[in-house]
């Protein structure tokens, strides 16, 4: 249905208009289904669980035994994430974070087969072993660079600000208030 051109890019088949027509790789058994017609259909699709923590790890999180992260830490994380502090349910966030931490702790305790490296930088989704790049491959890659208009790489092939809520003379507009006045 859609062409795969790159090893590590998830393609947008038919351009941006069909963004919702498939699910990302991390969701496992992705397949192409019917085209979505409304936002509600997309929301319903994304909210439908396709896997669960329990299924994979057999965990059973008891909320009353969780150690909650301190309120100050939650506020710091909200600030770091550029999220507002006012009008948010700090307790709910504490509980969500506690569950996530509990999950991460479980992940850390899973025995890993064939573990050859304990380096932090090897903790990743991409393969640890990749093909070595030699000089000929490098020169070939430099020589055969190609722009793809389907993903906007050809200059002027699409209007970047066309999807923006606000733009001015071809620029994206950022309200100062978004960057400042953030408590």
């Amino acid at each position, binding site marked *: 249905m859609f062409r795969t051109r790159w090893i590590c890019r998830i393609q947008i088949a038919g351009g941006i208009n069909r963004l919702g027509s498939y699910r990302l790789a991390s969701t496992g058994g992705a397949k192409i289904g019917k085209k979505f017609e409304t936002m509600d259909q997309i929301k319903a699709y994304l909210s439908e669980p396709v896997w669960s923590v329990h299924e994979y790890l057999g965990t059973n999180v008891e909320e009353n035994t969780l150690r909650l992260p301190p309120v100050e830490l939650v506020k710091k994380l909200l600030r770091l994430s550029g999220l507002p502090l006012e009008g948010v349910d700090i307790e709910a966030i504490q509980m969500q974070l506690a569950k996530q931490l509990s999950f991460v702790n479980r992940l850390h305790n899973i025995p890993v087969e064939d573990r050859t490296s304990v380096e932090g930088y090897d903790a990743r989704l991409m393969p640890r072993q990749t093909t070595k790049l*030699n000089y000929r491959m490098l020169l070939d890659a*430099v020589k055969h*660079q190609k722009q793809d208009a389907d993903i906007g*790489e050809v*200059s002027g092939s699409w209007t970047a600000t066309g999807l923006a809520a606000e733009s001015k003379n*071809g620029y994206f*507009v950022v309200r100062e208030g978004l960057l400042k006045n953030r408590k």
Partner: protein
Amino acid sequence: MLRFARCYSLARSKATQVQSTVFKPEYALKCGLEIHTQLNTGNKLFSQSTNSATPLADVPNHHTSFYDVALPGTQPVFNLEAILFAMKLSLSLNSQVNMVSQFDRKHYFYGDQPQGYQVTQHYRPFARGGKVNLSRELDGIDESSKDISIAQLQIEQDTGKSHYTDTGKDVVTLVDLNRSNVPLIELVTNPDFSDIKQVKAFIKKYQNLVRHLHISSGDLETGAMRVDVNLSINEFARVELKNLPNTSSIINAIKYEYQRQVELISRGETDSLLEPETRGWTGSSTVKLRSKETTIDYRYMPDPELPYINLAPDIISGVAASMPELPDDIMRMLMQKPFQLSLKDAKILTYNSNQNDMYNHEALRSYYLKTFHEFSKLIGKQGSAKLPTNWIIHEFLGDLNKLQVPLDKAQEVLPPAVFAEFLRLLYTETISPTSGKLLLFYILETFKQSGCQDSFLPDLPKLIKEFELHAITEVDSQELMTLCNDIIAQHTDEAFIRNLVSGKKKTSLKFLVGQGMRQSQGRIKAGEFEKKFKEILDIQW
């Protein structure tokens, strides 16, 4: 008016303060640099959209792919050309290239950073180590030689550009993402600089190096090269200086900050120097941007979408074999025999100033070397090195600029062999320097008038004959006497003659000789005139 004058005097006192900064041995300056250099790869770092980061004429957001503006679902694909460029720079600095390096995410929120993070190399950068050698001979520093060691080189993506507008009622930021995802190399030096001259020399040398390797325009003014300074005095905490748009800002900011810290230390007010802080440059002073309490936690993490850069050993030898000779080696070659160029002239042939449309330094150096060898063949090994230098670097370039004829075009009528023949005519005094200037200009002007189309090689003997440019070897004594008497009558008075003859104003003789050279169009040698004027005026000194 009074108010204006007051502002002016304040501004002046600040400038004077910066300029008069004295570096004292009891307050030891320790400096390191972080330099971001935009790579001029054809395309961007993690997409194939056009890398056109600096041209001011570009339409905003014109060179942006879905990835560059961070549309959801898009992912990076690494442009390997950045490896080639980074490898060239690493090898030229003698840095140790990591055979496995990786990309990491540095998180922070800003309008011109649509992903919410910058892809950089934090845990395993592209290269570590290496050095830049500065010397008194080539770089004008005080020490005879000084190595500035390199901590690391990392590849990373640039952000977009923010334009701040304030219409009075509304403050908005206009964001242009043409620069978003343009490849950068960040070079971090160790804190090895101990004075301003070294910093200045390093920036100039590094700027020339990236231009020499054709990996960046290296321009500070356009932001293609951006320099941050880390500075500390007497082992107090490090202060990072940012927003330094050009060399004079860098130098003045260091001077100002040094002075500020020295004053704090000498008054014993060192509390603020115990923790690192980041300061910006306003144009006349440094101001605090961030301290330890407000340090950004970047939450670095390995990028989960980009594979490691895993290099085969042959890549280093392959790139090394394709490297050009490095600027310091070229400079030393030009300053030694047989060329014996001055530092200034050697720099003209080695340093790319990006400021002349008529020639580039590489083409000019090639032209100079070829002409030099042709000329040496014509006159044997004992030839004068000064002739090719003066006539190519000064006279010829001057004509090209004046007539706006590019060097590559001019070479069609004056290839190295013809220029060497022209130099031989000067060397053998077949034509005088003045006639030589006329002849060279005439050849280039005629070529220019043809729209740089008539590229017939000039027949030098024919032109010399046609315009009677040959030097007069046997001067008619009577004719010379008449000419000199005319000059004395036209250009002197009694006091002039008295001062000249008495030796009180010996330079007046040069003036008279100059008039003679002018009237004879340089065809009669200066020495002949000097002899005759002395004879007529009975000058005994």
